[in-house]
């Protein structure tokens, strides 16, 4: 343990049990910073990072702060870097790309979510969309938090293979988009523009229509039409909705053959399950509340005798 042997890269890191113990005591943000030191440290840190979180989020907050954030909600950690106001969006994006690729490589997570901010200059926007499109297969969730209707439409058309697509921004009252849309899972916040027609023609597995402008009456009419066979919707479509005065008992008020029973959900909480049946006892829909954060309703459209 002479002084010379510790002049560069201390011998402590050449001992695997020591190295492992040190790395396991480090926060992910420090592990990322360590991995940036050299190729060797990247390879050293990689096995530890791949075990950290199964789901990761990368966020671009391109306001004055120009912040790029990596977060792992499972283990509640976050690493971010910022650029000063004098740096352009384009430069921020270009310089971030290398870092992002490095972190992708480091964590090798099967589940990456990206929050894109596209209310910026066209050149940067185009590049970000191209980047996300190239990684569509590894992006499990793509968010658009901006307010541009043009960008929202573009994302809906471009990322139909992305596992989940979220529109989180407040789009203008005039915003409309042509359905059918093919995203497997589509989550729309501030969904004032989504109509029952849109929901009917959705071709994916699940759609969340949150803060909708629809009302109990719209759902009541829709259910009656679905029951009578005059409307079509994809069977087993999982529809999540929230709107003002949402009330399932009002929705099913004058619909015959509605059964109510208590069920225990996966979070171990109890709720009433409403099941709507046809005259021949086949089930056409089941509905229940999902309460965390705010009241939402889940409807699953069926055409069978299956019960949840």
């Amino acid at each position, binding site marked *: *343990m002479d002084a010379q042997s510790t002049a560069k890269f201390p011998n*402590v890191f050449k*001992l695997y049990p020591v190295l492992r*113990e040190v790395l396991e*005591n480090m926060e992910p943000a420090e592990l990322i910073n360590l991995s940036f030191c050299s190729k060797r440290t990247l390879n050293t840190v990689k096995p530890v990072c791949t075990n950290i979180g199964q789901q990761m989020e990368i966020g671009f907050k391109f306001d004055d702060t120009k912040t790029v954030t990596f977060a792992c909600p499972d283990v509640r950690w976050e690493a971010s870097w910022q650029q000063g106001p004098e740096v352009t969006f384009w430069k921020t994006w270009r310089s971030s790309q290398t870092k992002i690729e490095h972190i992708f490589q480091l964590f090798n997570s099967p589940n990456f979510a990206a929050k894109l901010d596209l209310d910026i200059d066209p050149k940067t926007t185009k590049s970000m969309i191209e980047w996300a499109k190239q990684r569509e297969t590894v992006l499990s969730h793509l968010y658009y938090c901006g307010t541009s209707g043009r960008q929202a439409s573009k994302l809906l058309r471009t990322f139909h293979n992305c596992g989940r697509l979220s529109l989180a921004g407040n789009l203008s009252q005039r915003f409309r988009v042509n359905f059918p849309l093919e995203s497997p899972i589509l989550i729309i916040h501030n969904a004032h523009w989504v109509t029952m027609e849109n929901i009917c023609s959705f071709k994916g597995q699940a759609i969340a229509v949150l803060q909708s402008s629809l009302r109990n009456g719209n759902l009541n009419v829709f259910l009656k039409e679905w029951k009578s066979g005059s409307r079509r919707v994809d069977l087993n479509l999982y529809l999540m909705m929230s709107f003002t005065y949402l009330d399932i008992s009002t929705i099913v008020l004058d619909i015959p053959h509605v059964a109510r029973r208590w069920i225990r959900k996966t979070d171990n909480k109890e709720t009433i399950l409403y099941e709507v049946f046809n005259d021949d006892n086949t089930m056409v829909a089941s509905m229940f509340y999902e309460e965390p954060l705010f009241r939402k309703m889940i409807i699953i459209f069926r055409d069978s005798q299956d019960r949840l």
Partner: protein
Amino acid sequence: MSSTEQGTSSAAPAEPTTAPESAAAPEVPESFYYVHGKDKVVHKVSAGALQHSALIHGMISNLGYTEEQAKANPFPFENIDGDILQMVVDWCNQHKGKPTPPEDTNLPKQKEKLFDLVLAVNYLEIKELLTYCCKQVAMMVKGKSPEEIREIWMIPTDAEDEAAEKEAKKRAGKEAAGETAAAAGDAK
């Protein structure tokens, strides 16, 4: 705390001073062993304190030394600096027969000393102390940038790593050539 004394040579270790005494003396007389580091200073440590070290514990449980034999044959740890061994012995004495606390704040703040302590503790297989030391090493870079981490942990750049690798290859090549020449000479 163990008391120490400067030794004269590794073959004839200096007579150690009095053994560390705990406040409550054990009913059964405790056995003691002797260790010294690079500086040849001999430390008298109780078997109870030495139980922290899996390496020494394994050695003494196989030896069955008498007090006299133990005194005459101190365990030499020539790869450990005297002051570092002193720290280790102190820690073992302080935590003799006690459950180890979740944190240890008495570790050296100076990084070279801490790194040397880690190497010694890893060699002596003192698991709890190694855990504290590694936590302390990890804490050194908390909130630091890559450049700061590189400086604190003395991490070489890619260019330095490549140069070192080239140098190692060159050295290995030379050594291989030397061995071949020697073998050819032997054959003649």
